[in-house]
């Protein structure tokens, strides 16, 4: 026998053996009749504690397993969720809350007033709005297991808005024994009273997260609206399958191996849109806002005129295209508060709108006395939203004749480096980019990037007592009209002081198989009400 036929024989033997194995092996065991929703999340779930981190993936995990006292609906109205009824005393200083019947944690224990108080107190140690509320709080007191009170030192008109905060950090309710954990230490026991239960034994970080329906959950009777209303679960099990590669994720959805892909890069939208069994949809009514943040500690952006110059040169439409690939997936938003929400306006936005005025920008740079100082833009090439903004900003600033050094790295390096208060010669920075989801920037209370609290402010550390005063005045507003007016005053000052530049409002669409229905339109991905046929 010659070598070729020997080779053929050996290959035939291997194929035959494989076929034999295939024929003899048992099919995979699947739970009979179970409805399993397979979902590709936008990030890997690493931290289970929605209080210690502001990561959106952990917030979404929080909505799966926890419940909230109140929730915000699609009309931006606060609705009771775990709370059955509540009262505010005539002097506006005492709230009394009564819990709904039938609320139970996943370990079978009933939800008590003590659990709610401990959870809110832990949340208030971390969340900016919670901290503001805590400043006005005298005491939380349990009247009995189902009723508790909040006694205020002075009226805090945003109490219910704070308890219904839709995005990070969300005041989720946990058992008291867990909520007593230090607010900086991650909890390790993910027990909530929400519509799904977390299956810790099946959690493979970096790959898979499993939830099962909480059959003890008693939903409200109202229809779902954002995070408010009835959380009726219509599947038995949800699997979050983290697929880091976008092309693979698209192929998996096209092939029907998964049912839903939370967020896709814009270049893959046409690929999925061709498949009649896949629906590409914008389910996020608020989208996200791009951010260009300055370092206020060192030249040149410690000079107000330099920051104003950027306003005159930056074109938001370029950023929409850069981030979202098409003007269908975003638009210019000349507001510090999410466009499409009650407090958004274009007050003071003239420098950022209309035809770009490079002459005016150059004039401001000249007035600022710019001496050619190096501008370091820290970039994260592994985050397309950050990377595209960084490239556009570098190009815009170069057109203005500025000395730009675009320094590429990864996201992990960027978020470490941006906390450096050193000058650029020692690893500091001048500009970084990020993005904030719409619900995080709807008001002066939530938009932390607009604050001017100096060394206590967000990275960049702008120091502007005036904007802080205006923000405090907004907190004191008691009706929608005065609230709107106070927010406009904050924005007017912000366009003058320029704590950051809003670069665009964009929406990264979601895609799901057409056998799914009931996907909730909301700025957070929510999984109740979703039905699989």
């Amino acid at each position, binding site marked *: 026998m010659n070598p070729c036929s020997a080779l053929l024989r050996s290959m035939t033997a291997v194929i035959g053996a494989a076929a034999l194995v295939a024929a003899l092996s048992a099919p995979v065991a699947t739970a009979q009749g179970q409805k399993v929703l397979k979902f590709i999340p936008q990030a890997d779930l690493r931290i289970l504690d929605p209080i210690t981190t502001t990561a959106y993936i952990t917030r979404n995990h929080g909505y799966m397993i926890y419940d909230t006292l109140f929730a915000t609906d699609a009309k931006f109205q606060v609705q009771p969720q775990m709370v059955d009824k509540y009262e505010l005393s005539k002097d506006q200083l005492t709230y009394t809350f009564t819990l709904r019947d039938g609320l139970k944690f996943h370990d079978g224990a009933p939800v008590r007033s003590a659990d709610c108080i401990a959870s809110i107190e832990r949340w208030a140690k971390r969340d900016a709005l919670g901290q503001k509320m805590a400043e006005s709080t005298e005491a939380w007191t349990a009247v009995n297991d189902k009723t508790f009170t909040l006694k205020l030192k002075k009226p805090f008109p945003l109490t219910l808005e704070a308890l219904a905060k839709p995005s990070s950090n969300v005041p989720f309710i946990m058992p008291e024994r867990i909520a007593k954990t230090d607010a900086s230490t991650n909890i390790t026991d993910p027990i909530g009273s929400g519509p799904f239960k977390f299956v810790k034994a099946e959690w493979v970080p970096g790959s898979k997260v499993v939830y099962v329906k909480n059959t003890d959950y008693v939903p409200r009777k109202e229809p779902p609206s954002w995070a408010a209303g009835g959380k009726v679960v219509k599947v038995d099990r949800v699997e979050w399958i983290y697929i880091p590669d976008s092309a693979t994720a698209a192929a998996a959805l096209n*092939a029907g191996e998964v049912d839903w892909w939370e967020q896709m890069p814009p270049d893959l939208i046409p690929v999925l849109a061709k498949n009649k069994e896949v629906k590409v949809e914008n389910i996020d009514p608020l989208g996200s806002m791009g951010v260009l943040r300055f370092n206020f500690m060192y030249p040149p952006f410690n000079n107000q005129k330099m920051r104003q110059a950027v306003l005159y040169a930056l074109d938001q439409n370029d950023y929409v295209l850069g981030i979202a690939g098409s003007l269908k997936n975003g638009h210019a938003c000349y507001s510090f508060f999410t466009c499409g929400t009650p407090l958004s306006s274009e007050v003071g936005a003239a420098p950022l709108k209309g035809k770009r005025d490079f002459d005016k920008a150059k004039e401001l740079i000249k007035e600022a006395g710019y001496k050619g100082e190096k501008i370091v833009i820290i970039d994260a090439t592994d985050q397309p939203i950050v990377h595209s903004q960084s490239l556009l900003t570098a190009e815009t600033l170069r057109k203005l004749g500025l000395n730009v050094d675009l320094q590429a790295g990864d*996201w992990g390096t960027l978020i470490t480096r941006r906390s450096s208060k050193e000058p650029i010669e020692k690893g500091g920075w001048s500009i970084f980019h990020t993005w904030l989801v719409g619900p995080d920037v709807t008001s002066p209370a939530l938009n932390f990037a607009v604050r001017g609290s100096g060394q206590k402010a967000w990275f960049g550390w702008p120091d502007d007592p005036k904007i802080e005063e205006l923000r405090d005045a907004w907190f004191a507003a008691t009706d929608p009209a005065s609230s709107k007016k106070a927010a406009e005053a904050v924005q007017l000052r912000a366009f003058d002081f320029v704590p950051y530049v809003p670069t665009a409002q964009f929406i990264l669409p979601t895609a799901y198989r057409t056998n799914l229905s009931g996907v909730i339109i909301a700025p957070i991905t929510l999984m109740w009400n979703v039905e699989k046929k």
Partner: protein
Amino acid sequence: MIAYIVRRLFSTIVVMAVVAFVVFSLLYLTPGDPAAIIAGDIATDEDIRRIHARLGLDDPFLVQFGRWVWSLAHGDLGTSIFTNLPVTQLIGQRVEPTLSLTLCTLVIAILVAVPLGVVAAAKAGSWLDRGVMSFSVLGFSVPVFVFAYILILTFSVQLDWLPVQGYRSFRDGVWEWLRHLILPSVALGTVYVALITRMTRASMLDVLAQDYIRTAEAKGLAPKQVLIGHALKNAAIPVVTIIGVGVALLISGAIVTETVFALPGIGRLTVDAILRRDYPIIQGVILIFSAIYVLVNLAVDLSYVLFDPRIRLT
């Protein structure tokens, strides 16, 4: 022989100690702060400082290193900074997919590459030889991810024969396990097929030019007997060496394949840990990789005795 093995195993401990120190030092000096990543995008300086203190990241280098070595000496690789799960558990979750992928790739590579290399050498200069060599060049040249996407598009999306992604345990059934491994193994195996084919061909050509082969042919032995019984056995040492190196490379080099096919293996665990600066995982994985490298090399060295009885390990 026994003394040789004991000596080599002892040297493994020394190598691991050096690796441990170097890895810890490098990570200490690498830019990046897990506290900043844990705190999230909208955290404040104060949030980061608090987490920093809790994780002990403010302690001096020697204190941190000493703490790690002490845990290591007690068989504890530490706990993931992010998930709070023990590193041993996280690695344990990932071992099966990576070993399965390595095993399947190796089987495919050896079953395909060794016969191809032998045939190419036996028919040196023929169209068959040129064809095999062209395939080999292609295997080297096409990046794994390109080949992976072509396989996914053809066999998963178009033909719907095999799954796009994911891993099923052997316990879920042999066929389910195998069908999730076929495409990743073929994609990853291509470069190893190319490598082993070229090595086998070159080694065989060298042996086939030896006097004893001519003598064997002159004695009237069948070509198959000459090739397999005499030539291949004597050409095996370089081939075994390259397969051994390949095993070590496969374990660490499967990162791209694991990412494209969403296999929850050790490669992806490592990359994810590096991206988010989860130091205990990085340290644990590198230590284990180092041990595997050393042990695979030892196994290769020991195998030489089987192929060439003249070799004595002392």
